């Protein structure tokens, strides 16, 4: 089952990357990042069946960082939305010269 779990992790990660590259809604892009973090967690847990529980400890840390990232990132999205009234990244182009 280890190979299947790792393959599923790889495919989920690629789906997350494709989502980040194809979507323009900032919130959905953010959720795609969460999906990628979940894919990495799956490989950690799958490999922890071979190498002991350290992998699971790393999953706990990953989840903490994901929670912190979600809180700050969504606050940034709300702050941006107050300024430009959109979360479509096509319309958020202040840095375009």
């Amino acid at each position: 089952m280890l190979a299947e779990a790792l393959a599923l992790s790889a495919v989920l990660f690629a789906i997350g990357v494709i989502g980040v590259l194809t979507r323009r809604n900032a919130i959905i892009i953010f959720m795609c990042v969460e999906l990628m973090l979940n894919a990495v967690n799956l490989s950690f847990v799958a490999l922890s069946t071979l190498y002991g529980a350290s992998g699971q400890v790393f999953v706990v840390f990953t989840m903490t960082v994901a929670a912190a990232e979600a809180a700050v990132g969504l606050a940034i999205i709300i702050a941006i939305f107050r300024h430009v009234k959109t979360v479509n990244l096509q319309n958020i182009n202040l840095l375009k010269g």
Partner: protein
Amino acid sequence: MQPNEFHPIAYSAAFYFFGLTALASAIAFVTRKSPVAAAMWLVNVMFCLAGLYVMLDAQFIGAIQVLVYAGAIMVVFLFVIMLLNLGHASELADARGRWGQVLALLVGLALVAPLLALSKGDLLNRMIPPDLAARAAAAAAAPTAGGVIGPVAEPLFKEYLLAFELTSVLLLAAIVGAVVLGKRRTDAR
């Protein structure tokens, strides 16, 4: 790792069920236009992954996955979607053009091909430590103090104690940052 009490065929069937459901939900997630529908499919992915964690002998991680990811993080996402009130899904057509999608698909395939090759190939067999069977037997023979949480808690509070403490600082910084960023700006004098 304790041996699974499942029948092997039932174990495989459940494993493939959770895995394929997670895969289908992930594909549905990136193709939905409405952010709420996408969030719901992502919650489904997370529940399936929690099932997989339990089947991979990581019961504590499975419970945490449901509580933290599906229960807390996704609720925050749904709150923000609701707060922003983005309008109807049909007005939100936010996917990039055809060429952007083709390019993204190529990038995804280029990314997944080597990873799949790694997970299928001989490398995995070489990664298995030679004393795996002996360690598994020792783990099965030893009394499991602390049940399923003990093996996770022990390295967390001994080997990785510094990282654990630093995590609390990170969370504090995130709380303060989120409050400051989310605060409505009072008129600057």
